[in-house]
Protein backbone atom coordinates (compact mmCIF):
# COMPACT_ATOMS: atom_id res chain seq x y z
CA UNK A 1 0.00 0.00 0.00
CA UNK A 2 2.78 2.40 0.90
CA UNK A 3 4.19 1.19 -2.34
CA UNK A 4 1.20 2.47 -4.27
CA UNK A 5 1.28 5.80 -2.48
CA UNK A 6 4.90 6.38 -3.39
CA UNK A 7 4.61 5.07 -6.94
CA UNK A 8 1.61 7.10 -8.05
CA UNK A 9 0.88 10.78 -7.62
CA UNK A 10 -2.48 10.36 -5.93
CA UNK A 11 -2.34 13.79 -4.34
CA UNK A 12 -1.64 15.32 -7.73
CA UNK A 13 -4.65 13.56 -9.22
CA UNK A 14 -6.89 14.87 -6.45
CA UNK A 15 -5.30 18.25 -7.07
CA UNK A 16 -6.64 18.14 -10.61
CA UNK A 17 -10.03 17.03 -9.26
CA UNK A 18 -10.08 20.10 -7.02
CA UNK A 19 -8.94 22.28 -9.92
CA UNK A 20 -11.80 21.00 -12.10
CA UNK A 21 -14.27 21.40 -9.26
CA UNK A 22 -13.28 24.96 -8.35
CA UNK A 23 -13.35 26.35 -11.88
CA UNK A 24 -16.52 24.45 -12.82
CA UNK A 25 -18.19 25.65 -9.63
CA UNK A 26 -17.41 29.26 -10.51
CA UNK A 27 -18.49 28.71 -14.12
CA UNK A 28 -21.75 27.00 -13.21
CA UNK A 29 -22.64 29.60 -10.56
CA UNK A 30 -22.14 32.48 -12.99
CA UNK A 31 -23.89 30.77 -15.89
CA UNK A 32 -26.66 29.35 -13.68
CA UNK A 33 -27.38 32.79 -12.22
CA UNK A 34 -27.61 34.22 -15.72
CA UNK A 35 -30.04 31.53 -16.84
CA UNK A 36 -32.09 31.99 -13.66
CA UNK A 37 -32.37 35.73 -14.33
CA UNK A 38 -33.51 34.90 -17.88
CA UNK A 39 -36.14 32.53 -16.52
CA UNK A 40 -37.70 35.17 -14.27
CA UNK A 41 -37.25 38.14 -16.64
CA UNK A 42 -40.24 39.99 -18.10
CA UNK A 43 -39.03 39.23 -21.66
CA UNK A 44 -40.78 36.10 -22.92
CA UNK A 45 -38.07 35.19 -25.44
CA UNK A 46 -35.47 35.14 -22.68
CA UNK A 47 -37.75 33.09 -20.44
CA UNK A 48 -38.19 30.57 -23.24
CA UNK A 49 -34.44 30.38 -23.89
CA UNK A 50 -33.83 29.81 -20.18
CA UNK A 51 -36.41 27.06 -20.04
CA UNK A 52 -34.87 25.35 -23.05
CA UNK A 53 -31.42 25.57 -21.55
CA UNK A 54 -32.52 23.85 -18.36
CA UNK A 55 -34.51 21.17 -20.14
CA UNK A 56 -31.74 20.34 -22.57
CA UNK A 57 -28.79 20.22 -20.18
CA UNK A 58 -30.56 18.76 -17.19
CA UNK A 59 -31.71 15.85 -19.31
CA UNK A 60 -28.49 15.08 -21.19
CA UNK A 61 -26.09 12.65 -19.49
CA UNK A 62 -22.86 14.39 -18.49
CA UNK A 63 -20.84 11.58 -20.07
CA UNK A 64 -22.44 12.40 -23.41
CA UNK A 65 -21.54 16.07 -23.06
CA UNK A 66 -17.97 15.13 -22.17
CA UNK A 67 -17.51 12.81 -25.11
CA UNK A 68 -19.18 15.31 -27.41
CA UNK A 69 -16.78 18.04 -26.32
CA UNK A 70 -13.71 16.21 -27.51
CA UNK A 71 -15.14 14.12 -30.35
CA UNK A 72 -17.62 16.70 -31.63
CA UNK A 73 -16.24 20.08 -30.74
CA UNK A 74 -12.51 19.43 -31.05
CA UNK A 75 -12.15 16.69 -33.66
CA UNK A 76 -15.07 17.48 -35.94
CA UNK A 77 -15.58 21.24 -35.43
CA UNK A 78 -11.91 21.92 -34.71
CA UNK A 79 -12.58 23.92 -31.54
CA UNK A 80 -9.39 23.36 -29.62
CA UNK A 81 -9.15 25.15 -26.28
CA UNK A 82 -5.43 24.48 -25.84
CA UNK A 83 -3.67 23.74 -29.16
CA UNK A 84 -0.30 23.22 -27.46
CA UNK A 85 -1.47 20.29 -25.38
CA UNK A 86 -4.05 17.51 -25.87
CA UNK A 87 -4.44 17.05 -22.12
CA UNK A 88 -4.92 20.79 -21.64
CA UNK A 89 -7.64 20.85 -24.25
CA UNK A 90 -9.46 17.98 -22.55
CA UNK A 91 -9.17 19.62 -19.13
CA UNK A 92 -10.56 22.91 -20.39
CA UNK A 93 -13.42 21.20 -22.20
CA UNK A 94 -14.16 19.24 -19.04
CA UNK A 95 -14.49 22.52 -17.12
CA UNK A 96 -16.75 23.97 -19.81
CA UNK A 97 -19.02 20.93 -19.89
CA UNK A 98 -19.15 20.60 -16.11
CA UNK A 99 -20.09 24.29 -15.91
CA UNK A 100 -22.76 24.06 -18.60
CA UNK A 101 -24.27 20.91 -17.13
CA UNK A 102 -24.38 22.07 -13.51
CA UNK A 103 -25.58 25.57 -14.45
CA UNK A 104 -28.96 24.00 -15.19
CA UNK A 105 -29.14 22.73 -11.60
CA UNK A 106 -27.82 25.99 -10.17
CA UNK A 107 -30.54 27.81 -12.12
CA UNK A 108 -33.28 25.63 -10.70
CA UNK A 109 -31.91 25.92 -7.17
CA UNK A 110 -31.86 29.71 -7.52
CA UNK A 111 -35.35 29.75 -8.94
CA UNK A 112 -36.58 27.89 -5.90
CA UNK A 113 -34.73 30.56 -3.90
CA UNK A 114 -36.49 33.34 -5.78
CA UNK A 115 -39.77 31.70 -4.88
CA UNK A 116 -38.96 32.09 -1.18
CA UNK A 117 -39.10 35.88 -1.65
CA UNK A 118 -42.65 37.22 -1.23
CA UNK A 119 -43.90 38.69 -4.52
CA UNK A 120 -44.72 41.94 -2.74
CA UNK A 121 -41.03 42.75 -2.32
CA UNK A 122 -40.45 42.61 -6.07
CA UNK A 123 -43.47 44.89 -6.52
CA UNK A 124 -42.21 47.30 -3.89
CA UNK A 125 -38.86 47.40 -5.68
CA UNK A 126 -40.51 48.09 -9.02
CA UNK A 127 -42.86 50.63 -7.47
CA UNK A 128 -39.96 52.69 -6.11
CA UNK A 129 -38.44 52.89 -9.58
CA UNK A 130 -35.76 50.22 -9.53
CA UNK A 131 -35.21 48.72 -12.98
CA UNK A 132 -35.53 44.97 -13.50
CA UNK A 133 -31.75 44.57 -13.24
CA UNK A 134 -31.58 46.62 -10.04
CA UNK A 135 -34.42 44.71 -8.39
CA UNK A 136 -32.72 41.44 -9.30
CA UNK A 137 -29.37 42.55 -8.01
CA UNK A 138 -30.36 44.31 -4.82
CA UNK A 139 -33.60 42.66 -3.75
CA UNK A 140 -34.30 39.28 -5.35
CA UNK A 141 -30.95 37.57 -5.95
CA UNK A 142 -29.38 38.23 -2.53
CA UNK A 143 -32.41 36.65 -0.89
CA UNK A 144 -32.65 33.91 -3.53
CA UNK A 145 -29.04 32.85 -2.88
CA UNK A 146 -29.64 32.76 0.83
CA UNK A 147 -32.86 30.81 0.40
CA UNK A 148 -31.18 28.36 -1.99
CA UNK A 149 -28.02 27.54 -0.05
CA UNK A 150 -29.09 24.00 0.76
CA UNK A 151 -29.93 22.98 -2.85
CA UNK A 152 -26.88 24.89 -4.12
CA UNK A 153 -24.76 22.87 -1.68
CA UNK A 154 -26.18 19.62 -3.02
CA UNK A 155 -25.44 20.75 -6.56
CA UNK A 156 -21.83 21.63 -5.74
CA UNK A 157 -21.27 18.32 -3.94
CA UNK A 158 -22.65 16.51 -6.97
CA UNK A 159 -20.32 18.60 -9.11
CA UNK A 160 -17.25 17.52 -7.12
CA UNK A 161 -18.16 13.89 -7.65
CA UNK A 162 -19.13 14.43 -11.28
CA UNK A 163 -15.62 15.66 -12.07
CA UNK A 164 -14.84 11.92 -12.28
CA UNK A 165 -16.74 11.82 -15.57
CA UNK A 166 -13.87 13.81 -17.08
CA UNK A 167 -11.91 10.55 -16.91
CA UNK A 168 -13.72 9.41 -20.06
CA UNK A 169 -11.92 12.04 -22.10
CA UNK A 170 -8.58 11.26 -20.50
CA UNK A 171 -8.34 14.03 -17.92
CA UNK A 172 -5.95 12.69 -15.29
CA UNK A 173 -8.11 13.44 -12.25
CA UNK A 174 -8.62 11.04 -9.35
CA UNK A 175 -10.94 8.49 -10.99
CA UNK A 176 -8.70 8.29 -14.00
CA UNK A 177 -5.67 7.51 -11.86
CA UNK A 178 -7.66 5.00 -9.85
CA UNK A 179 -8.48 3.08 -13.03
CA UNK A 180 -4.81 3.09 -13.97
CA UNK A 181 -3.69 1.81 -10.57
CA UNK A 182 -6.32 -0.90 -10.39
CA UNK A 183 -5.25 -2.11 -13.79
CA UNK A 184 -1.55 -2.24 -12.85
CA UNK A 185 -1.53 -3.33 -9.22
CA UNK A 186 -3.03 -6.01 -7.05
CA UNK A 187 -5.20 -5.17 -4.06
CA UNK A 188 -7.93 -3.34 -5.94
CA UNK A 189 -10.09 -3.05 -2.82
CA UNK A 190 -7.51 -1.03 -0.91
CA UNK A 191 -7.02 1.30 -3.86
CA UNK A 192 -10.73 1.74 -4.14
CA UNK A 193 -11.00 2.64 -0.45
CA UNK A 194 -8.19 5.21 -0.72
CA UNK A 195 -10.00 7.04 -3.49
CA UNK A 196 -13.41 6.79 -1.87
CA UNK A 197 -11.99 8.30 1.32
CA UNK A 198 -10.37 11.01 -0.79
CA UNK A 199 -13.75 12.07 -2.11
CA UNK A 200 -15.35 11.97 1.32
CA UNK A 201 -12.58 14.27 2.55
CA UNK A 202 -13.50 16.70 -0.22
CA UNK A 203 -17.28 16.58 0.03
CA UNK A 204 -18.04 16.06 3.71
CA UNK A 205 -16.70 19.46 4.86
CA UNK A 206 -18.53 21.05 1.94
CA UNK A 207 -21.79 19.54 3.16
CA UNK A 208 -21.18 20.71 6.72
CA UNK A 209 -20.26 24.18 5.51
CA UNK A 210 -23.43 24.55 3.46
CA UNK A 211 -25.64 23.24 6.26
CA UNK A 212 -24.23 25.76 8.70
CA UNK A 213 -24.41 28.57 6.13
CA UNK A 214 -28.01 27.84 5.28
CA UNK A 215 -28.83 28.18 8.96
CA UNK A 216 -26.74 31.29 9.58
CA UNK A 217 -27.69 33.20 6.45
CA UNK A 218 -31.41 32.38 6.37
CA UNK A 219 -33.46 35.55 5.86
CA UNK A 220 -35.76 36.09 8.82
CA UNK A 221 -39.35 36.63 7.68
Amino acid at each position, binding site marked *: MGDILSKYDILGAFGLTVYLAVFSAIGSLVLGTLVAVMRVSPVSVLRLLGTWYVNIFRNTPLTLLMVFSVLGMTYILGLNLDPSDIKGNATRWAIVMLSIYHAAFVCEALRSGVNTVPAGQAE*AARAMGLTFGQSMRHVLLPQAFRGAIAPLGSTLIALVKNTTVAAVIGVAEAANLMAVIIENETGALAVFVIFAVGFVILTLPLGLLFTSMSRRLAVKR
Partner: protein
Amino acid sequence: MTEPLVVLKDVNKHFGDLHVLRDINLTIGKGEVVVVIGPSGSGKSTLCRTINRLETFESGSITIDGNALPEEGKDLARLRADVGMVFQSFNLFAHKTILDNVTLGPVKVRKASKSAAEKRGMELLERVGVAQQANKFPAQLSGGQQQRVAIARSLAMEPKVMLFDEPTSALDPEMINEVLDVMVGLAREGMTMVVVTHEMGFARKAANRVVFMADGQIVEENEPEGFFTAPRSERAKDFLGKILTH
Protein backbone atom coordinates in the same frame (compact mmCIF):
# COMPACT_ATOMS: atom_id res chain seq x y z
CA MET B 1 -59.40 72.45 -7.11
CA THR B 2 -55.66 73.05 -7.19
CA GLU B 3 -53.58 72.31 -10.27
CA PRO B 4 -54.24 68.69 -11.37
CA LEU B 5 -51.47 66.22 -10.58
CA VAL B 6 -52.91 62.80 -11.35
CA VAL B 7 -55.45 62.60 -14.14
CA LEU B 8 -57.26 59.43 -15.20
CA LYS B 9 -59.41 59.65 -18.33
CA ASP B 10 -61.78 56.90 -19.42
CA VAL B 11 -59.52 54.18 -18.06
CA ASN B 12 -60.64 50.62 -18.77
CA LYS B 13 -59.06 47.40 -17.70
CA HIS B 14 -59.98 43.72 -17.85
CA PHE B 15 -58.66 40.65 -16.09
CA GLY B 16 -59.74 38.14 -18.73
CA ASP B 17 -63.53 38.43 -18.82
CA LEU B 18 -63.68 40.53 -15.69
CA HIS B 19 -64.12 44.24 -16.46
CA VAL B 20 -62.30 45.44 -13.37
CA LEU B 21 -62.01 49.17 -14.16
CA ARG B 22 -64.88 50.75 -16.09
CA ASP B 23 -64.47 54.20 -17.62
CA ILE B 24 -62.63 55.60 -14.65
CA ASN B 25 -62.39 59.40 -14.67
CA LEU B 26 -60.60 60.86 -11.71
CA THR B 27 -58.56 64.01 -11.22
CA ILE B 28 -56.45 64.53 -8.14
CA GLY B 29 -55.14 68.02 -7.47
CA LYS B 30 -51.77 68.92 -5.97
CA GLY B 31 -51.93 68.54 -2.21
CA GLU B 32 -55.29 66.84 -2.32
CA VAL B 33 -56.07 63.78 -0.18
CA VAL B 34 -58.53 61.37 -1.75
CA VAL B 35 -59.90 58.39 0.14
CA VAL B 36 -61.10 55.48 -1.99
CA ILE B 37 -63.69 53.28 -0.35
CA GLY B 38 -65.85 50.41 -1.57
CA PRO B 39 -66.68 46.74 -1.19
CA SER B 40 -64.00 44.09 -1.48
CA GLY B 41 -63.35 43.19 -5.11
CA SER B 42 -64.61 46.53 -6.44
CA GLY B 43 -61.23 47.34 -8.02
CA LYS B 44 -59.64 49.70 -5.48
CA SER B 45 -56.28 47.93 -5.39
CA THR B 46 -56.29 47.58 -9.15
CA LEU B 47 -56.92 51.32 -9.45
CA CYS B 48 -53.87 52.10 -7.30
CA ARG B 49 -51.70 49.58 -9.09
CA THR B 50 -52.76 50.93 -12.47
CA ILE B 51 -51.81 54.49 -11.49
CA ASN B 52 -48.17 53.47 -11.23
CA ARG B 53 -48.36 50.79 -13.89
CA LEU B 54 -47.89 47.75 -11.75
CA GLU B 55 -50.88 46.77 -13.90
CA THR B 56 -51.39 47.63 -17.54
CA PHE B 57 -54.67 49.01 -18.84
CA GLU B 58 -56.33 48.72 -22.23
CA SER B 59 -57.84 52.11 -23.01
CA GLY B 60 -57.93 55.64 -21.69
CA SER B 61 -55.04 57.64 -20.33
CA ILE B 62 -53.28 58.31 -17.07
CA THR B 63 -50.99 61.30 -16.60
CA ILE B 64 -48.84 62.24 -13.63
CA ASP B 65 -47.98 65.94 -13.50
CA GLY B 66 -48.75 66.19 -17.19
CA ASN B 67 -46.66 63.19 -18.27
CA ALA B 68 -48.37 60.13 -19.73
CA LEU B 69 -47.24 56.82 -18.28
CA PRO B 70 -44.61 55.32 -20.58
CA GLU B 71 -44.47 51.66 -21.53
CA GLU B 72 -42.36 49.27 -19.47
CA GLY B 73 -38.68 50.20 -19.38
CA LYS B 74 -36.29 52.82 -18.00
CA ASP B 75 -38.69 55.75 -18.53
CA LEU B 76 -41.38 53.99 -16.59
CA ALA B 77 -38.96 53.25 -13.76
CA ARG B 78 -38.13 56.96 -13.56
CA LEU B 79 -41.77 57.95 -13.48
CA ARG B 80 -42.59 55.36 -10.85
CA ALA B 81 -40.02 56.94 -8.59
CA ASP B 82 -42.32 59.99 -8.44
CA VAL B 83 -45.24 57.87 -7.28
CA GLY B 84 -44.82 56.42 -3.81
CA MET B 85 -46.69 53.27 -2.90
CA VAL B 86 -47.47 51.77 0.48
CA PHE B 87 -48.90 48.27 0.52
CA GLN B 88 -51.15 46.42 2.91
CA SER B 89 -48.39 43.88 3.58
CA PHE B 90 -45.55 46.44 4.10
CA ASN B 91 -43.21 44.58 1.70
CA LEU B 92 -39.99 45.72 3.34
CA PHE B 93 -36.83 44.10 1.96
CA ALA B 94 -36.29 41.31 4.49
CA HIS B 95 -32.52 40.99 4.02
CA LYS B 96 -31.78 44.69 4.50
CA THR B 97 -31.68 46.74 7.67
CA ILE B 98 -34.35 49.35 8.25
CA LEU B 99 -31.95 52.13 7.25
CA ASP B 100 -30.84 50.25 4.11
CA ASN B 101 -34.49 49.79 3.16
CA VAL B 102 -34.90 53.55 3.25
CA THR B 103 -31.67 54.43 1.41
CA LEU B 104 -31.80 51.84 -1.42
CA GLY B 105 -34.12 53.86 -3.66
CA PRO B 106 -32.42 57.24 -3.21
CA VAL B 107 -28.98 55.73 -3.87
CA LYS B 108 -29.88 53.47 -6.82
CA VAL B 109 -32.68 55.44 -8.48
CA ARG B 110 -32.03 59.05 -7.49
CA LYS B 111 -28.24 58.57 -7.49
CA ALA B 112 -27.90 60.28 -4.12
CA SER B 113 -24.62 59.78 -2.26
CA LYS B 114 -24.68 57.11 0.44
CA SER B 115 -24.00 59.62 3.21
CA ALA B 116 -26.66 62.08 2.06
CA ALA B 117 -29.18 59.26 1.71
CA GLU B 118 -28.37 57.99 5.21
CA LYS B 119 -28.68 61.43 6.75
CA ARG B 120 -32.05 61.99 5.08
CA GLY B 121 -33.07 58.40 5.88
CA MET B 122 -32.42 58.92 9.59
CA GLU B 123 -34.45 62.15 9.53
CA LEU B 124 -37.37 60.30 7.99
CA LEU B 125 -37.11 57.38 10.41
CA GLU B 126 -37.04 59.95 13.22
CA ARG B 127 -40.14 61.55 11.83
CA VAL B 128 -42.13 58.29 11.68
CA GLY B 129 -40.78 57.36 15.11
CA VAL B 130 -38.61 54.33 14.35
CA ALA B 131 -35.12 55.84 14.35
CA GLN B 132 -34.21 53.61 17.31
CA GLN B 133 -34.67 50.58 15.07
CA ALA B 134 -32.49 51.78 12.19
CA ASN B 135 -30.03 48.89 12.37
CA LYS B 136 -32.55 46.12 12.92
CA PHE B 137 -34.11 43.90 10.29
CA PRO B 138 -37.78 44.10 9.31
CA ALA B 139 -38.70 40.80 11.00
CA GLN B 140 -37.61 42.28 14.35
CA LEU B 141 -40.21 45.08 14.15
CA SER B 142 -43.92 45.10 14.91
CA GLY B 143 -46.37 45.46 12.04
CA GLY B 144 -47.06 49.09 12.91
CA GLN B 145 -43.35 49.88 12.96
CA GLN B 146 -42.81 48.07 9.66
CA GLN B 147 -45.58 50.04 8.01
CA ARG B 148 -44.12 53.31 9.27
CA VAL B 149 -40.76 52.27 7.82
CA ALA B 150 -42.52 51.52 4.52
CA ILE B 151 -43.92 55.06 4.58
CA ALA B 152 -40.45 56.48 5.30
CA ARG B 153 -39.00 54.38 2.47
CA SER B 154 -41.57 55.84 0.14
CA LEU B 155 -41.00 59.39 1.36
CA ALA B 156 -37.26 59.04 0.85
CA MET B 157 -37.88 59.11 -2.90
CA GLU B 158 -39.55 62.53 -2.51
CA PRO B 159 -42.59 61.41 -4.48
CA LYS B 160 -45.08 63.84 -5.99
CA VAL B 161 -47.96 61.65 -4.93
CA MET B 162 -48.36 58.71 -2.57
CA LEU B 163 -50.71 55.77 -2.97
CA PHE B 164 -51.77 53.79 0.08
CA ASP B 165 -53.54 50.46 -0.46
CA GLU B 166 -55.27 49.53 2.80
CA PRO B 167 -52.20 50.44 4.84
CA THR B 168 -53.76 49.47 8.17
CA SER B 169 -55.75 46.38 7.20
CA ALA B 170 -53.03 43.92 8.17
CA LEU B 171 -52.34 45.56 11.53
CA ASP B 172 -53.41 44.63 15.01
CA PRO B 173 -55.94 47.20 16.25
CA GLU B 174 -53.57 48.83 18.75
CA MET B 175 -51.13 49.67 15.95
CA ILE B 176 -53.55 51.24 13.53
CA ASN B 177 -53.43 54.70 15.04
CA GLU B 178 -49.65 55.03 15.04
CA VAL B 179 -49.73 54.54 11.27
CA LEU B 180 -52.77 56.76 10.71
CA ASP B 181 -51.16 59.53 12.77
CA VAL B 182 -48.16 59.55 10.44
CA MET B 183 -50.51 59.70 7.45
CA VAL B 184 -52.54 62.55 8.92
CA GLY B 185 -49.28 64.41 9.49
CA LEU B 186 -48.33 63.92 5.85
CA ALA B 187 -51.72 65.13 4.69
CA ARG B 188 -51.40 68.27 6.83
CA GLU B 189 -48.02 69.01 5.28
CA GLY B 190 -49.56 69.04 1.84
CA MET B 191 -48.62 65.62 0.43
CA THR B 192 -50.87 64.53 -2.42
CA MET B 193 -52.37 61.22 -1.36
CA VAL B 194 -54.67 58.51 -2.66
CA VAL B 195 -55.68 56.29 0.24
CA VAL B 196 -57.69 53.10 -0.02
CA THR B 197 -59.05 52.61 3.49
CA HIS B 198 -62.16 51.96 5.47
CA GLU B 199 -60.92 54.06 8.38
CA MET B 200 -63.62 56.70 8.53
CA GLY B 201 -61.82 58.59 11.26
CA PHE B 202 -58.92 59.15 8.91
CA ALA B 203 -61.19 60.13 6.05
CA ARG B 204 -63.00 62.68 8.19
CA LYS B 205 -59.80 64.10 9.64
CA ALA B 206 -57.58 64.22 6.58
CA ALA B 207 -59.45 63.67 3.31
CA ASN B 208 -60.65 66.38 0.97
CA ARG B 209 -62.77 63.94 -0.93
CA VAL B 210 -64.14 60.41 -0.71
CA VAL B 211 -64.48 58.33 -3.87
CA PHE B 212 -66.84 55.39 -3.61
CA MET B 213 -66.18 52.47 -5.96
CA ALA B 214 -68.32 49.45 -6.75
CA ASP B 215 -67.97 46.87 -9.52
CA GLY B 216 -65.08 48.68 -11.16
CA GLN B 217 -66.90 52.02 -11.38
CA ILE B 218 -66.71 55.25 -9.48
CA VAL B 219 -70.25 55.45 -8.19
CA GLU B 220 -70.09 58.53 -6.05
CA GLU B 221 -67.70 61.31 -5.01
CA ASN B 222 -68.21 63.76 -2.19
CA GLU B 223 -66.48 65.53 0.67
CA PRO B 224 -66.16 63.15 3.65
CA GLU B 225 -68.84 64.53 5.94
CA GLY B 226 -71.38 64.63 3.15
CA PHE B 227 -70.54 61.15 1.96
CA PHE B 228 -70.73 59.48 5.37
CA THR B 229 -73.84 61.29 6.61
CA ALA B 230 -75.80 61.54 3.38
CA PRO B 231 -74.67 59.08 0.69
CA ARG B 232 -76.62 59.58 -2.53
CA SER B 233 -76.39 56.20 -4.26
CA GLU B 234 -78.11 53.02 -3.14
CA ARG B 235 -74.80 51.12 -3.38
CA ALA B 236 -73.09 53.55 -1.03
CA LYS B 237 -75.99 53.53 1.44
CA ASP B 238 -75.98 49.76 1.43
CA PHE B 239 -72.19 49.60 1.88
CA LEU B 240 -72.08 52.17 4.67
CA GLY B 241 -74.97 50.38 6.38
CA LYS B 242 -72.83 47.26 6.47
CA ILE B 243 -69.70 48.83 7.87
CA LEU B 244 -71.43 51.20 10.27
CA THR B 245 -73.60 48.70 12.13
CA HIS B 246 -70.63 47.54 14.20
